[in-house]
């Protein structure tokens, strides 16, 4: 059996949870078994996970899990994994998943492959899966042979597929453990898709000259329903907030589309974005290294190109 831990935040599932269940179902098919989803704490409409491929949805309806503490979450997942005799446990490679995956592998005596980006292959007792390593500069295929296996799935690696039906939620309980982390507050930027989850990212660098010019970048992001990002010097100069900084020292992302405007494409920047499926580079310098990593390029002055792109996109969106 494949057990998927479906993360919820404020009672809701994020796209990453739906991706994890979709992935879990495919892994279960590969292994000739079923996929069971586990949710912790207060969640709304958990049965909807059935649509993404969970044949059962379990919920530990204890409000202790409404605040995140990797220790108690790990204990709960491990207990359920043991009781249901799960052979594979799947998590999201998110801030939550990264806090749990290592713990869970120790607790279950399981091999772990974190940040997998495609379906595994399996033979006999071994399971192999690929992940991106060396900050996107290589791919490593890992093998685990332990009885129980833990995989965490990178965001945007699979598309959530809603092909089944909702199921009824089975409320279960596990041995209670007291968390030792006290969550004081959670501050989330309202109304924007967080960078690691965004499908389209519009990013700009020092070529913008100053923060006062970002209006056209925001306009472009709005037209595309994209999240905005920036290079490190832009965040360091406080032209843009720090949470927008992508790259080796900032956030690593893998959107479907990354549009880089006035960014040179230094290796430390590429380290965080080179897993994007399609890269568009707008830069006035033909020699900018970013063009080597790009799928589409526009050599030109961004102050002319971006407004034109915005017009073209508006026309396209209007005509759709």
């Amino acid at each position, binding site marked *: 059996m494949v057990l998927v831990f479906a993360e919820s935040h404020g009672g809701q599932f994020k796209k990453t949870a739906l991706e994890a269940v979709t992935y879990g179902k495919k892994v279960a098919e590969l292994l000739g078994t079923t996929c069971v989803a586990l949710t912790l704490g207060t969640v709304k409409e958990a049965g909807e996970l059935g649509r993404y491929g969970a044949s059962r949805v379990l919920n530990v309806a204890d409000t202790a899990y409404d605040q995140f503490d*990797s*220790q108690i979450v790990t204990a709960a997942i491990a207990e359920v994994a043991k009781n249901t005799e799960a052979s594979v446990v799947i998590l999201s490679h998110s*801030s*939550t998943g990264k*806090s*749990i*995956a*290592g*713990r869970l*592998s120790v607790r279950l005596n*399981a*091999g772990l492959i*974190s940040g997998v980006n495609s379906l595994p292959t399996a033979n006999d007792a071994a399971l*192999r899966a690929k992940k*991106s*390593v*060396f*900050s996107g*500069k*290589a*791919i*490593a*295929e*890992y*093998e*685990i*042979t*332990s009885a129980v296996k833990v995989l965490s799935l990178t965001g945007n690696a699979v598309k959530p597929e809603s092909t089944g039906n909702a199921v009824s939620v089975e409320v279960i309980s596990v041995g209670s453990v007291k968390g*030792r*982390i*006290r969550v*004081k*507050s*959670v*501050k*989330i*930027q309202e109304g924007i*898709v967080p*960078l690691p*989850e965004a499908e389209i990212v519009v990013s700009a660098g020092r070529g913008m000259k100053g923060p006062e010019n970002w209006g056209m970048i925001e306009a472009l992001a709005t037209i*595309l329903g994209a999240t905005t990002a920036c290079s490190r010097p832009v965040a360091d100069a406080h032209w843009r907030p*720090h*949470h927008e900084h992508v790259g*080796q*020292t900032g956030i690593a992302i893998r959107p479907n*589309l990354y549009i880089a405007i006035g960014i040179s494409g230094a290796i430390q920047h590429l*380290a965080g974005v080179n897993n994007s499926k*399609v890269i*568009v580079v707008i830069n006035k310098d033909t020699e900018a290294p970013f063009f*080597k990593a*790009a*799928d*589409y*390029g*526009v050599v*030109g002055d961004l102050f002319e190109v971006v407004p034109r*792109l915005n017009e*073209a*996109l508006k*026309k396209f969106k209007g005509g759709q």
Partner: protein
Amino acid sequence: MKLLVCISQTPDTTSKISFNADGTAFNAASVQFIMNPYDEWYALVRACELREALGGTVVALNVGPAANETTIRKSLAIGADEAVRIDCDPNGAAFVAKQIAEYARAENFDLIFFGKETIDHNGSEVGAMVAEHLELPYVSYASKLELNGTVATLERDIEGGVEIVEVDLPFVLSASKGMAEQRIPNMRGIMTARAKPLKEVAAVVFEENSKVVQFTLPPSKAGVKLVQPDNMDELVRLLHEEAKVI
């Protein structure tokens, strides 16, 4: 205050990554190795700042071969009081975590620092594993850490925002950008580092349960398709019809 900082060594981001002919091993020759940036800039520096403010000892720990000593010495030059190397050639996160946990269990640290991830395997695994071995709370991706007596307040990066948490010592954390500012070792630091102790500890036996069987380089891009700057309709068309991303 007894602080442990786990230090790993990784290839410099700018190094060219290559593998042996059948793709089973990383080609370490001609690669420049550095201290993993998150361990150095954020974890180690914050630990040193706390020691400077509150007194105590900062121990830098590396699980690895003798060749790592340059990196370990650097951690002493930056400000660690002593260094420990668990002598082995580690082959995975679970192995490393087991070594760290066995060492730390006997030493009763107040706080154990990790970097948010190593830039070679990008796993973010070891810190969580050690926390579980030691049954300690774990705060990952911490971008701020303040201590008030035995109570710590931390900010942790989560998708689209931050979470503010409080936890009592002892616990384990992984550090991300914001926790401290990079420190360049000065001459005095480098000189005093020579006199600081570097202890070598034997590794415990542990069977690694996850291994790399094949390395490959990502498929190279087909090459950039250039679009004329005055023809953005064409770019939109390509993104819609060819790339199918809008």
